[in-house]
């Protein structure tokens, strides 16, 4: 704006009126942006406060034991969040264990190895994956993936890994098809596009100069990725992983279809379980009674806290690595 003013008036002769107007515009612009920024904080606090108010009857009744109680009995009005918390963390962990290596692999391939002509089609395919609604993943998981896992993969896991000492308990029990592992796999596919596209974008921010110099010194592709690209883009990588993890923790519909929705904790990854968001989605409409509804809201509050803690941990990790 200052530029246009300078052009329209002789240099140094901006009229008082124009100056005042531009100051006023500046002020309005400042207030508008300040307002937008404040709104975010207010909404965050508003969500937090309304969750606490809604969860209060349950928290007052059960106290902190709500967090480590496994029972969930609407009939007897005993509610505990341990099983959904466990399910949420385990499915997200499986999703990350599968999703991160594959995403990194795709990103490295796309930025370092892939022929130019293929980059766009593969890139677009991954972005389209992000556009698929979660209910579609749920249906696919339920009708295609779960029966396949039940008849082909899970019996194999039970007969092989199930007999290995220590980790055997993770693969025990009957092949239901649905359960923690299936939910983790579906989630892994869902977080793939998020982690991949961010990873690819941050890999691309590595200066060509650095990269070419490294190749010039005779480094292999692996060495370039390991010693130049990843260290340079570390902050962005953690950001991408956190975005994926955030989605995995909160995903509702797709998980509801394939998790088996039971409030129990068992050692086996093949057994049915539930997650926080799946429990809320399943039970909220028919939850009668204040304590039941309030316990579901309390679950929501816990999810909020978990997500917040994950983000805070990520930030802390970043700050620590920056300082080194």
């Amino acid at each position, binding site marked *: 704006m200052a530029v246009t003013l300078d052009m329209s008036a002789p240099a140094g002769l901006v009229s008082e009126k124009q100056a005042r107007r531009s100051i006023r515009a500046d002020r309005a612009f400042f207030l508008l942006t300040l307002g937008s920024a404040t709104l975010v904080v207010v909404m965050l606090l508003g969500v937090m406060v*309304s969750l606490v*108010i*809604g969860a*209060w*009857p349950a928290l007052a009744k059960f106290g902190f034991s709500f967090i480590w109680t496994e*029972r*969930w*009995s*609407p*009939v*007897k009005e005993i509610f505990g969040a341990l099983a959904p918390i466990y399910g949420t963390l385990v499915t997200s962990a499986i999703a990350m264990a599968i999703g991160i290596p594959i995403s990194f692999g795709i990103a490295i391939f796309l930025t370092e190895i892939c022929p130019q002509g293929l980059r766009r089609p593969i890139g677009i395919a991954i972005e389209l994956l992000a556009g698929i609604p979660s209910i579609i993943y749920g249906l696919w998981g*339920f*009708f295609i993936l*779960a*029966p396949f896992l*039940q008849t082909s993969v899970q019996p194999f896991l039970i007969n092989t890994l199930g007999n290995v000492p220590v980790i055997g308990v993770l693969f025990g029990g*009957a092949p*239901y*098809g*649905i359960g923690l592992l299936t939910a983790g796999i579906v989630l892994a596919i869902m977080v793939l596009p998020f982690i991949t596209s961010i990873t690819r974008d941050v890999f691309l921010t590595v200066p060509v100069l650095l990269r070419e110099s490294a190749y010039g010194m005779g480094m292999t592709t692996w060495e370039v990725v390991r010693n130049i690209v990843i260290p340079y883009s570390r902050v962005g990588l953690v950001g991408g992983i956190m975005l994926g993890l955030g989605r995995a923790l909160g995903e509702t519909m797709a998980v*509801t*279809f394939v998790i*088996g*929705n*039971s*409030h129990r904790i068992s050692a086996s990854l093949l057994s*049915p379980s*539930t997650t926080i968001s*799946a429990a809320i989605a*399943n*039970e909220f*409409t*028919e*939850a*009668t009674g*204040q304590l039941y*509804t*309030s316990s579901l*809201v309390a679950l929501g509050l816990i999810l909020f806290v978990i997500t917040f803690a994950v983000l805070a941990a990520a930030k802390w990790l970043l700050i620590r690595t920056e300082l080194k």
Partner: protein
Amino acid sequence: MMNFIRSTIVAATAIAASTAMMMPAASAADISGAGSTFIYPVFAKWAATYKTSTGIGLNYQSIGSGGGIKQVEAKTVTFGATDKPLSDAELSKNGFVQFPMIMGGIVPIYNIEGVKPGELVLDGKTLAEIYMGKITKWNDPAIAKLNPDLKLPSAAIVVVHRSDGSGTTFNFTDYLSKESAEWKDQIGSDTAVEWPVGIGSKGSEGVANTVKQTAGGIGYDEYAYAEQNHLSYARMVNAAGKIVAPSLDTFASAASNADWAGAKNFHVIITNQPGDKSWPIAASTWVLIHKQPDDAQAAATALKFFSWAYKNGGDAAKALDYVAIPDNVVKLIEKSWSNVTASGKPVYAAE
């Protein structure tokens, strides 16, 4: 403190309801209701016929019994429909009148290799033990004893139940509570319970598909849904010790043997009723309406529709695999409507 959340929900539904009102299809005279998904197909069918003959439509949101109760409490709809009857205390607290509208059945469905649809016979005790995880194999002596002619495999039983709150679950667990003291004591009956074993699936279709996909699976669904989707359902041993197959006749028998006249507020759950021909897991849906409605005209219009449905809706209900309320019960219901009043006078008098 819950009021905040509740009022938010109510406000949201009120907005949804008012936008629905603004749609050209619904006129101001339409009847508004919300609740049970179990009764929805019947309401939809009745409403279509009623609209052509009277011009009055029905705007029914099948959002589940719990949601229907919340909405009628908040007076955003004229009536609510629920698969689990309210207690006398709940009714008087809210000033509701409650009466049954339709009946149907709930059937156990299964997927056992080598056992054809309708061949399996179960009784309440066995069913309860399966759902408690005490019977885990299909060739368990308890099941074999009921099915001497069947060759049952040694396959594991995979228990499937509803993951969402549901009137179907309420009636099913009510039946198990009546048949097994242990079930009643440890688990009880409600729209959602603490299942000791099994997989939870969302909705009737979720349970049906999980059973279909899982070898050795057992689940439960509304008869109408099971029948229309050709699921293989079991026969049951009823309270009289007879083996019965699910059908409109056996549901009707359960309904007519129930003691409607002796129950306050029609609070009769028609599971495990006497009678040689009675299907043991029958279910009904109740309508809730305010005793002193704010809008007497709307309440009268709704009651008039219900009266029409009792009289003319039987065949339509039958075609959808539901059972109409017996005539003698309808008389009692219409008598109870005299409690719905505005300025001291009944809003609607059945002819």
